[in-house]
């Protein structure tokens, strides 16, 4: 009896599998980890490395997170536009200038769209750029140190959203304004917006050696909202495409008033043409005021300078440089495929996707097939630039990435899914749900001529019940799908920091060999570095006291200091004398109104302490550095302001 039951079961099982047209793949995809090797595919054994780095924006945290894929392990959180007590970024004296702007010290921003530098259309892994949305800034993160080394403010811009995407040789990192504003800023009635406000598209040149940024020109476009952008590549290299909404130029109740036009535009900008115009003396210099902040790896110190003018270009002065491509329903993502032929408009209030053709665009321009103009800028005829439409692909398309195999992957916010479709036939191949309400998606190298189409990462806005609850505020998430098969397969679901707006991914092998291990002590050019223990000292200059201190396993030099008075402003300039990989030291002082310092081997950092009470106050190492970490401590004696105790300092003296 038992045997026959088993036999019957086996028969049915076999029958049910055999009679299906479904491939094994699609079944596995639907069943997740249970029926497939999903767990194996994301398992990176202890001590092994991930295959990809993913740089995922932290949104309103102002930071950039570094994850390994496929494991989803968090490797580092890089402070960019935020003060970070963990690393003393924005708290120590060296990095405070990095957060300087024309509005003063702004220790926060809304970090949105990381993009990795490229050479010949391929990721070169030298830098990541990311935009600060709120107080318009573009930052550059150096991928040898994984630290923010440069921030440039963008004048005449507001809501720096259509940013920070690089051209195929990193000639430019581009920053388009979301809000149009009066240029120059002035006191005027809001309702006079229409026709008077301008939308600045800023082309920031990137110097090839050190990556230093400089605003080459600002293209002063009509007062629309510029949402996202991507560069042309291959045949369309030299062009840049920007999605627009609010072509109605409404200034209130935007959810109604900026959705009146059936079509907005993708603006196509021939930056090569404008570059030539500018190089020949074109454009108009206008007064401006914006910060340019650079962190130097040798001085371990940032400087901030205010720049006082910017070159602006009126699009009408450069005929043939700017055209408008009608695109339905307030397009969000504006994505260019690896070949440079297709420009995908993700009309966020639409169910369809609009795919424009670069070849058709060029033919339409040549044949002057215009459909009117907006403020003198020619509008191309929709039908003449359209390659085709992906019909009823989902609800609320936001962003499309490419696998380099002729497929595109689009996120749909409202229907909460990733949809795979074929670039040429524009037919939907597969769809997989996201949990929940996906924003952007990322394929490593997706914004390049050469994507690595192994995974797509979906970044979700809402998680609700997906993880253990943590009160009203719950984490955002990222979900990793295997895209090597015909059907996508959900592999992993992991929490993220802040709001992961956008991400850029790259094979680890491109970056890993360049990652710095230590700073060389002999190369330390910090103004207040103490390179020899014999130079450790304390100096007084009025009520300013400078402590020149060193640290090595497991003591500070000096560790006893006397002669400090209430009312003094005490600068601790601390140099880490270690020259071993991964031996940072920290320091913190009781009552210091700042964060700890976390100092890498060979580096010098400074914090300020203003003692308010007489007494003997301790300081200690905050990073577990060694077996004698708990012994790594010292005292500062603080005397009343009226005291005449001389400065003295020592280590190991009785």
């Amino acid at each position: 009896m038992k045997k026959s039951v088993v036999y019957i079961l086996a028969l049915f099982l076999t029958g049910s599998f055999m009679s299906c047209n479904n491939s094994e793949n699609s079944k596995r995809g639907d069943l997740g980890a249970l029926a497939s090797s999903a767990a194996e595919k994301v398992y990176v054994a202890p001590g092994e490395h991930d295959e990809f780095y993913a740089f995922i924006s932290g949104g309103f945290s102002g930071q950039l997170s570094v994850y390994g894929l496929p494991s989803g392990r968090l490797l580092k959180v890089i402070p960019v536009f935020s003060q970070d007590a963990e690393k003393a970024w924005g708290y120590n004296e060296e990095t405070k200038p990095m957060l300087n702007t024309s509005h003063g010290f702004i220790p926060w921003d809304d970090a949105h769209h990381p993009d990795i530098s490229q050479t010949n259309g391929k990721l070169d892994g030298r830098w990541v750029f990311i935009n600060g949305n709120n107080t318009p800034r573009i930052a550059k993160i150096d991928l040898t140190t994984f630290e923010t080394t440069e921030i440039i403010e963008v004048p005449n811009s507001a809501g720096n959203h259509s940013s920070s995407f690089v051209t195929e040789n990193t000639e430019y990192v581009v920053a388009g304004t979301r809000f149009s504003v009066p240029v120059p800023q002035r006191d005027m009635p809001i309702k006079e917006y229409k026709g008077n406000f301008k939308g600045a598209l800023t082309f920031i040149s990137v110097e090839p050696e050190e990556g230093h940024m400089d605003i080459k020109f600002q293209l002063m476009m009509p007062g629309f909202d510029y949402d996202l952008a991507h560069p042309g590549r291959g045949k369309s290299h030299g062009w840049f495409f920007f999605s627009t909404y609010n072509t109605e130029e409404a200034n209130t109740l935007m959810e109604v008033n900026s959705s009146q036009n059936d079509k907005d535009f993708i603006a196509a900008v021939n930056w090569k043409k404008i570059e030539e115009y500018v190089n020949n003396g074109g454009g108009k210099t206008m007064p401006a005021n914006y910060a340019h902040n650079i962190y130097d790896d040798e001085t371990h110190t940032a400087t901030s300078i205010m720049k006082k003018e910017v070159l602006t270009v009126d699009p009408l002065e450069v005929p043939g440089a700017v055209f408008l491509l009608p695109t339905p329903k307030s397009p969000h993502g504006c994505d260019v495929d690896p070949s440079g032929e297709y420009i995908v408009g993700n009309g966020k209030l639409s169910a369809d996707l609009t795919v424009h053709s670069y070849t058709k665009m060029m033919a339409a321009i040549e044949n002057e097939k215009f459909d009117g103009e907006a403020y003198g800028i020619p509008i191309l005829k929709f039908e003449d630039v359209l390659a085709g439409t992906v019909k009823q692909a989902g609800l609320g398309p936001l962003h499309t990435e490419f696998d380099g195999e002729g497929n595109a992957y689009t996120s749909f916010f409202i229907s909460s899914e990733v949809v795979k479709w074929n670039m040429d036939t524009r037919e939907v191949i597969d769809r997989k749900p996201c949990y929940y309400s996906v924003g952007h998606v990322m394929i490593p190298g997706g914004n390049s001529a050469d994507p690595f189409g192994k995974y797509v990462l979906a970044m979700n806005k809402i998680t609700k019940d997906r993880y253990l609850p943590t009160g009203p505020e719950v984490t955002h998430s990222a979900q990793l799908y295997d895209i090597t098969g015909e059907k996508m397969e959900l592999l992993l679901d992991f929490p993220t920091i802040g709001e992961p707006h956008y991400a850029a991914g790259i094979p680890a092998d491109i970056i890993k060999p360049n990652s710095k291990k230590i700073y060389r002590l002999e190369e330390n050019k910090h103004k207040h570095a103490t390179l020899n223990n014999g130079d450790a000292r304390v100096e007084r200059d009025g009520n300013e006291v400078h402590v020149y201190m060193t640290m090595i396993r497991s003591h500070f030099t000096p560790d006893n200091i006397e002669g400090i008075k209430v009312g003094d402003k005490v600068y601790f300039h601390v140099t880490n004398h270690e020259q071993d990989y991964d031996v940072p030291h920290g320091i913190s002082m009781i009552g210091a109104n700042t964060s700890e310092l976390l100092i890498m081997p060979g580096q010098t950092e400074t914090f300020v302490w203003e003692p308010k009470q007489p007494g003997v106050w301790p300081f200690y190492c905050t990073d577990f550095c060694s077996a004698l970490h708990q012994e790594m401590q010292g005292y500062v004696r603080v005397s009343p302001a009226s005291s005449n105790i001389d400065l003295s300092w020592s280590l190991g003296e009785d």
Partner: protein
Amino acid sequence: MKATIKLFVLTIFIAGFTACGNSNEAKVENVSANSEQASEERQGQAFVKDDVSEPTVLDIAIQSKNHKTLVAAVQAAKLENALVNAGPLMVFAPTDEAFNALPDGTVEDLLKPENENKLSHILKHHVTPGKYDKEFLKKFKKLGQASDLNVPVEVKGEDVYVGGAKIIASVPAGNGIVHVIDKVIIPQN
């Protein structure tokens, strides 16, 4: 014992055949993972247990006595998850009576699995991204629907008509608003 075995065999049998009838959905979970794995269309935000938040547009339709056909249609078109999205979503909800007024057999026909796309298109034609009360809707000449088509907005006296259907009641929701209408809005195409 015998009965259990029979039941098990029957489950396998059904599972096997169901899987074959549907090209996209694997339903072999009865065999390998009874409780762990729900099929995909039963997952998503619509199935999050939440009894404290304001009801969504979907909750409102489900709780209504007069929208049984609409709810059945939403389920048949697998649109539950879209309707609990952050939105904001404005749903024009035809009553059961409105569906009954369609030619005989129309609803039954639309509910057939092979007509899922058609049904979905019609339902999306009843959804606008946005949240406006009846009074505010008077400012509009047209609305852009999730079907990618527009519907006209007309004001006749105190009444507001959307796509020819009259708004007879309105219920605000956590993620939008439900306007109850007296007709099904059939898309032009």
